[in-house]
């Protein structure tokens, strides 16, 4: 009889241990057995409690580390975003398009041209052309040391696109090195109006301006002639 009772008690306690372990597994890390009696089983119970303590400590630490890593990652991503932003800002700043005369835009290019920068430059120039209504633009590449096939093609594309908008784009300041590269690469720039220096390009642009002014004046006089009759 007494034996049976003891076994019942032990079963109860083992069930309780199982319950605690189950709740720990489910995430309740504060659950403990906290046995009050002192006997053979209580040693095991205390050992399990200790084990749970160790486990939860480790778990907490890991969570903390994970949080730190995540925070750092977010910070890095934020920084990366800033870098990208600054990069694109820099690209835009490095190709200023300015109106220098009636009807004339100048885009001085300084430094090495890569495909991306040339692309942004082209977009800026074309947008500025439409915005200002200038029909002549000068792309001055005096400050460009070298070009490759891709960049030369982008320049060609810019001039063609400008023509499609109904304007003329002149390239000035082609250095001997660039002239050599362009011919060696087999790129045909013959359809493009090129000038030796920015000054030559400016003179050409002003002459073009005068020409169209003259035409306007001419048509004005022609109209008044008709009126007199």
């Amino acid at each position: 009889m007494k034996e049976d009772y003891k076994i019942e008690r032990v079963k109860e306690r083992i069930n309780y241990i199982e319950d605690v372990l189950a709740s720990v597994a489910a995430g309740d890390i504060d659950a403990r057995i906290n046995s009050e009696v002192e006997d053979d089983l209580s040693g095991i119970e205390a050992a399990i409690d200790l084990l749970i303590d160790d486990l939860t400590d480790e778990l907490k630490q890991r969570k903390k580390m994970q949080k730190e890593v995540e925070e750092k990652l977010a910070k890095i991503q934020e920084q990366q975003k800033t870098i990208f932003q600054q990069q694109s800002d820099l690209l835009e700043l490095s190709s200023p398009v300015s109106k220098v005369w009636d009807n004339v835009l100048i885009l001085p290019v300084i430094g090495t041209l890569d495909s991306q920068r040339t692309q942004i430059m082209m977009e800026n120039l074309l947008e500025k052309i439409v915005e200002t209504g200038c029909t002549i633009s000068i792309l001055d590449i005096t400050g460009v040391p070298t070009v490759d096939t891709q960049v030369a093609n982008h320049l060609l594309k810019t001039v063609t696109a400008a023509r499609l908008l109904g304007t003329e784009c002149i390239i000035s300041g082609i250095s001997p090195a660039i002239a050599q590269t362009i011919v060696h690469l087999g790129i045909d720039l013959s359809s493009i109006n090129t000038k030796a220096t920015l000054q030559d390009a400016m003179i050409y642009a002003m002459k073009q301006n005068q020409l169209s002014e003259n035409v306007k004046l001419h048509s004005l006089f022609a109209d008044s002639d008709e009126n007199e009759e």
Partner: protein
Amino acid sequence: MNIDLHEKRIPIIKIGNFLIVSIQVDMHDKLAIQLQSQILEEIEKTGAKGVLIDISVLEMVDSFIGRMLSGMATMASIMDASVVIVGMQPAVAITLVELGLEMPGVDTALNMEKGMEMLEKRLKDDDYKLY
């Protein structure tokens, strides 16, 4: 859903010696072809010497519409009328060049006013040649 093609006719306006066409809708291919013959018929009917085609609201010109426009210019010039494409958006110009459609031989102008000046100048030049 299916709109009658003729409902969407693009208006052609005649001012002086010139025709003015302003394309305000995203054209499908049939409408583009229809516009082409419509303009040519109008040139014949009115004896117009120039055509201004305003595409400033077009957000996209693909190879078909591009070909239609440059074909239009050639056809009109055989009929003794000059075509000027006016107001192309920068994005459209870049895309056309990248597509490989550089439209050589097609005259373009930044805006209506400049296009009109261009046509007037050409008409005057032709007059001088005669006398």
